[in-house]
Each structure stands twice: as structure tokens, then as C-alpha cells.
């Protein structure tokens, strides 16, 4: 059943998040808009629908957790946290500035709502396994979501961790691969191909679901499917577009780690869809 009202509501939030990402990175004149925008629709589905969490109690032991392994997408995470009430939306303007709680890459000790310090790529999945393992030990029913990148999957540690999650039958873990196919130096397939990534995770004994990472119906359905899978972890391979929702940034590797010029911001914000 497609819940159009829910989806339209989430899409409206996504527009706000994308604008927050553009504004914050432009103010900072640095940061990573491309990979933040590709991850936005999935993160919106998690923070504003799927996950049980509240800004009133960021350390609730029963909360669902989101671990952003591709920590450079921090602007998207910060925007979701701010729009969820973890801190004032206005604080997004301090991104990457001296003394800010909004570090260039997320730091759990600085900002409420940030579950894991990430940024050095490849490390978030191991951390997520640890959180999921703790949930199993304590017999808690919280869910752990971990977003990894496709360029990030060139890190060996991802595959060490990918052996751990099925070995310990972490069905309380749902990994999401933001498969936008671009990294700093160009196309992932040219820099160092990770394909066939779907087969790789299948071979590692994950429940694998492939979706269009910008189709809300597919995202929501996949997240529900992950809940139903018992005895093994799920990975959602989300085919995404780097820079999604901002036409001039779409599918361009150059927008991986570059902010738009202050003079371009208004035009850019207007173009968000």
C-alpha cells in the first residue's frame, strides 16, 4: 500500500534538508554536498518515519540507531538531526567553523544525536556491529542502521565487518549502501571497481535488497522488508545520484567535496526539487 500522504510529507522534508545542506556548506565554503544529497531521501525516511528516536532523550537505551559510516555526508545528518529537534536549525550555519559542535566529520562527543564519530572511511560498519551485538546481549529490540558509501567499500575494513555481521546473525542490523557511483577521483568503476557489489554481499550471507534510493515507495518497502528478515543482516543497495535534487550538481564528481559559491546559492536553492 502506497501511503501518498506520508510520502508527500517526507518529500517536503527532503526539500528542507537539501536546502539546509546547500546553505550550510556554502556558509562554510567547504564540505561534501554531493554525497549528502545522494543520501538525503534515505535518511529522511529513517529520521522522519522509520526510526524510533526522540530529541528529548538522545541516549534512550531503546532508541533505534543510525550510524553514518560515510561521515563526510555530515551535512545531511546534521540537517536531519536539527529538523528532528536535536539542536536549533540555525546552528547549521556554524558547520565546520571554529568552536562549532558541527565538526567537518561527525563527532559523538560534541553533538547530541550523533551515534558514532566517523569520517575515516570503512569504520562505521564495525561500530554498528558492536552496537547490534550489544542489543543482542541485552535482548533489546532496537534496530541499527548503518549507511556506507560505494567508494568507501574499497576499504578492507568494510569487508572484515561484512564477515562479522552475518557470523553473529545480526538481524537487528540494516546496512544501506549509498551507491552513487562517484568518488573524488571519478567514477567508482574507474578508480577501483567494486562490482558486482550485490553478489559480493550475497556471498557474504547478507539479505540483499536493491532499490532506487530516491523512490520513497521502494525505500520504505525495503526498510520494512529488513525488519521481517530473521537470522541474517540486511543490506539495501540503494542506487542513487550524487548531488540528487540540485540539477547543477547531479552526477558530477567535482561536487563531492566542494561548496557552491555564495553568489550562486540563491539560484541553487531555487533549483532544489
Amino acid at each position, binding site marked *: 500500500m502506497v501511503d501518498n500522504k506520508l510520502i508527500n510529507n517526507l518529500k517536503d522534508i527532503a526539500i528542507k534538508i537539501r536546502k539546509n545542506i546547500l546553505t550550510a556548506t556554502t556558509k562554510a565554503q567547504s564540505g561534501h554536498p554531493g554525497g549528502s544529497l545522494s543520501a538525503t531521501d534515505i535518511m529522511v525516511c529513517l529520521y522522519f518515519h522509520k526510526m524510533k528516536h526522540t530529541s528529548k532523550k538522545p541516549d534512550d537505551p531503546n532508541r533505534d540507531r543510525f550510524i553514518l559510516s560515510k561521515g563526510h555526508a555530515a551535512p545531511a545528518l546534521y540537517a536531519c538531526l536539527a529538523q528532528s529537534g536535536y539542536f536549533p536549525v540555525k546552528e547549521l550555519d556554524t558547520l565546520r567553523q571554529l568552536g562549532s559542535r558541527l565538526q567537518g566529520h561527525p563527532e*559523538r562527543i560534541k553533538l547530541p544525536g550523533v551515534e*558514532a564519530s*566517523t569520517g575515516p572511511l570503512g*569504520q562505521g560498519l*564495525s561500530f554498528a*556491529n*558492536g552496537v547490534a551485538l*550489544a542489543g543482542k*546481549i541485552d535482548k533489546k529490540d532496537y534496530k541499527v542502521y548503518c549507511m556506507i558509501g560505494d567508494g568507501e567499500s574499497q576499504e578492507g575494513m568494510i569487508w572484515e565487518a561484512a*564477515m562479522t555481521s552475518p557470523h553473529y546473525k545480526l538481524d537487528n542490523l540494516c546496512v544501506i549502501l549509498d551507491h552513487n557511483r562517484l568518488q573524488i577521483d571519478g567514477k567508482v568503476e574507474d578508480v577501483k571497481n567494486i562490482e558486482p557489489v550485490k553478489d559480493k554481499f550475497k556471498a557474504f550471507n547478507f539479505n540483499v535488497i536493491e532499490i532506487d534510493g530516491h523512490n520513497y515507495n521502494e525505500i520504505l518497502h525495503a526498510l520494512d522488508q529488513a525488519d521481517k528478515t530473521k537470522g541474517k543482516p540486511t543490506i539495501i543497495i540503494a542506487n542513487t545520484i550524487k548531488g540528487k535534487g540540485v540539477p547543477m550538481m547531479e552526477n558530477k564528481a567535482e561536487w563531492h567535496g566542494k561548496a557552491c559559491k555564495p553568489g550562486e546559492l540563491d539560484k541553487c536553492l531555487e533549483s532544489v526539487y
Partner: protein
Amino acid sequence: MEIKKEATRDGFGKGIVKAGSNKDVVVLDADLAESTRSIKFKEKYPKRFFDMGIAEMDMVGTAAGLAASGKIPFACSFAVFATGRAYGAMRLAAISELNVKIVGSHAGIGTGEDGATHQSIDDISLARTLPGMTVIQPCDSLEAEKATLALVKHKGITYLRTTRSKIPIITKENDTFTIGKGTLMMDGKDIAIIATGTLVHLALEAAGELKKQKISARVINIHTIKPIDKEIILKAAKETGAILTAEDHNIIGGLGSTVAEILTENYPTKMKRIGINDEFGQSGKPDELYQKYNLTKENIIKNAKALLRRK
């Protein structure tokens, strides 16, 4: 009376089993449970023990996630892998201020036959350069057991360095163990020998010999290399005027370096570092290697006398 000998890794094994009475304690190992002695915990608390396979980065990263969820994880491997192979994960856990306990056994060239690849002479250096890290190396099995239990109560990221070979138990059952406090093992006024780990008992033996030759040597055991007990070091410098350090680690970055940093800034004193002289080890029996690389009672005595001549 025969002095009882035991490896510090065995002390960890005993300590971690006792620590298991705290239900939050969990233990991870990277396929070396028998060697690190974490197997003792596995035998008693199998549900709180996790084999992580030969994947040290993943082990420490997983430990970080466990710590963030309220557990007290001990992540164990050989010292060379627990620090070097897992450095990125250790660094991120330190940035995250997580309560992760890294345990590296088989530290130093005393590891023996496995050779240079498995002999960590750089692990103290790697660990102590990380802000917020606590670095501990016990001098005997009894102290290792107490250190393990102290780590359970201590909040923050720590590195516990243990060793493979059996060494004399030189501390006493009722000696207190306090993280960050050096211990005076023998008093003396002419020179102070500041040692850590396997070199402490050798320093004591050297001091005994020196005494016979009318040289009064103080022996200080530094089990906590970071945060180090500055007070006991500066007091020794002021009262003896000559400092000799001894460790099974590169003289760069370990205890000797730490002591030199403190003295240089606070009370410049004649000193000499005994340790591995910036070279890798090789295969051999631990005793042979200690002879070859001059980690001996005789070399401590020789250097103490040379230092006294410079006073």
C-alpha cells in the same frame, strides 16, 4: 627461597576472569585467545566472549560500538597487531572518548622465535601519542591481574601491554595498584633506574649488585606510562642526579622518551635510555634476544656506572 615466575599475560588471564563478575565486561579476540589468555574468560563466560577472526581493525571498531552501548570491551591480540593493525580504529575510539580496553600481549622482542614482524617495539609509542589514551605495562603477573581489574573501573580508552615469557613475581599480594602512580621498588641516592615491564625485575637485580659495589641505586617501577607519574620521576632526578631508563621497546617513543621529555622541560638531568636502539629484532629464544639486544642486568650495571662517571 625460589621466586615464583609467571608471564604478565597470565596475570591478565586471571584478572579478566575475576572482572567477568561485572556483567558489562565483554571480551573480543582476533584468533589468539590461547596466547593472549583471553581464553580464560571465554571458558567461564562464553556468551560474553566474541571471536572476531583475524581482523584486528574490525575487532577494535566493534569494541567501540559495544562501548558506546554501555559495555566494557577488552579487545585482545598480540601487541603488534592490537595497536599497529588496528591503529585507525584505536585512534577513532580515542577521538570518540569511548571506554575501549585494548590488550596487547607478546610485547617487545621478548616475544622471541616469531621474529621482528611479531615483536612490537613501537606499540607504546603508537598508543601514547593519542590524546586521552592510558598506557599500562605491568611488571609481573600479580600486577597485571590488579591492572586488569583497575581497568574495569577506569573510564576511558586504555592500552594494556603484556608479555609472553615467565618473569619473577616481585610485587606483593597486598601492594596497592593505582593507575598513574609509579612505585618505589628499592630506595637509593646515587642513581635512579626507572623501568617498566620485564625490565623491572632486571633493574632490581642490577641494583642489588650495585649495592654490593657501594653504589646506592633507586629502582622505580613505571606501570603507567601514560599518564605518567611526573612527581616520582622529578623527585628521583632531584635526589639522585642521574636517571637510567630501561624497557623492552624502542628507545624512541617509549618510557625512555617520556622520561626524557619530563626531565628536559622540568629538571634537566644526566640520563641514559636502555632499550631497543631503533632497530628491529629477529628470531631467537627470548633469553638469547635479551642478551643480544643488551636488555640485561649486566648492561644496566654498566650503564649505571658510566652515568655516574658523567655526574
